[in-house]
């Protein structure tokens, strides 16, 4: 039930105040055209979930620099100075999460699990206010599942059925986010007739809309 859309159609699926997961690692595998399409709307007050803050002029960082984001959940924000500036001005709230925890929080929500039990972050500020559960004699932090209204995926190649595979390291968070959001829009560099069933990474039932174009 995939629908191939144009940039201008993206406006139908975004609105102010919504939560959006954006694929990519330091903008590698981020959907630049979808991000531009969101910037072309007037939505604001977004909660963004992404591995990092991107760069000031690249990746998800462009939404942050443009002041469209009120909350960012990420593992790293050091590459985008706009994040620090907006935090100091109290215009942006940032929740820093260990990268592996972030990946599993997203996966667990897509997998219908109640979050994860991880040793990561024990005895650090990350553990503050969280449940500690002992399993087989070892202590783990309970980190809750993370979902969002919309996923914007990048780094992909689609087939005519709407299946996706990813190119190189552009895979990163994209397949996890595809399963953890109500609406999933993928930006793809090309559309092939059919992806080998062994090579499909995100199966077509998880993709709602496809924008062709971009890297």
């Amino acid at each position, binding site marked *: 039930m995939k629908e191939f859309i144009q940039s201008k159609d993206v406006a139908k699926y975004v609105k102010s105040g919504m939560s959006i997961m954006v694929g990519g690692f*330091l903008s*590698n595998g981020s959907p630049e055209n979808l991000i531009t399409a969101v910037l072309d709307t007037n939505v604001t007050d977004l909660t963004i979930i992404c591995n990092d803050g991107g760069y000031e002029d690249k990746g998800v960082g462009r939404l942050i620099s443009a002041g469209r984001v009120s909350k960012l959940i990420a593992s790293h924000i050091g590459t985008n100075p706009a994040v620090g500036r907006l*935090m100091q001005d109290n215009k942006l709230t940032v929740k*820093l999460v*260990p990268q592996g925890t972030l990946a599993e929080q997203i996966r667990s929500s897509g997998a219908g699990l109640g979050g994860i039990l991880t040793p990561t972050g024990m005895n650090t*500020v990350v553990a503050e206010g969280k449940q500690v559960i002992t399993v087989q004699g070892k202590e783990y932090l309970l980190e809750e599942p993370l979902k969002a209204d919309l996923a914007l995926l990048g780094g992909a190649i689609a087939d005519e059925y709407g299946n996706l595979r990813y190119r190189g390291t552009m895979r990163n968070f994209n397949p996890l986010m595809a399963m953890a959001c109500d609406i999933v829009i993928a930006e793809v560099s090309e559309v092939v007739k059919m992806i080998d069933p062994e090579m499909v990474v995100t199966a077509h039932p998880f993709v709602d809309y496809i924008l062709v174009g971009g890297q």
Partner: protein
Amino acid sequence: MDEKVIIAKRIALEFKKGYLVNLGIGIPTMVADYIDHDQEVVLQCENGIIGIGPLSECTTELVNAGGLCATILPGGSFFDSATSFSIIRGGHVDVTVLGALEVDFDGSIASWIIPGKKVPGMGGAMDLVVGAKRVIIAMTHTNKGIPKILKKCTLPLTAFKQANLIVTEMAVIEVLEDGLHLLEVNPEYTIDQVIQATEANLIIDNVIPMKGIEQ
């Protein structure tokens, strides 16, 4: 020899044949340049690759954990971020090499935040130090004369009691249950100079000249 080169060369000796290794950003990345080809060490990057090779002209498809364009070696593979951190957290990485701001007597590590000053985020570091079989800290011995190997970390922790080895331009220090053992000293320094530059107590049994920095 540049102090960073000294650290990188010395750490490269720690790898055994076939080891799966994750190198952090900064000095740790330099270690790759000094790995003996015969060691058949395989490098993993947390953004989803086993078998990362040298940097390259930008291709957009493949970046390293620092976001720089890189290559994949024969036999390598790509995967998503959840799989990547399963590898990391699951104890499948033999050694991780990471920078740090502070390390203490217990092997606790602080590396991801200087409150009020610099908040880059923990990225994948918290998972790496908890999950890797062996954690090697690569850092300069002091910050312009101020010791970084402390009785107790002052900055927020990346992890509690996880460092196994500390390699600086001055010395190689092993972290054991009973404290920090001074194993090797760079012949350019005396043992006393190392002790002076270290806040934590050092256990000194049988110190030898620092290996791997002859030429």
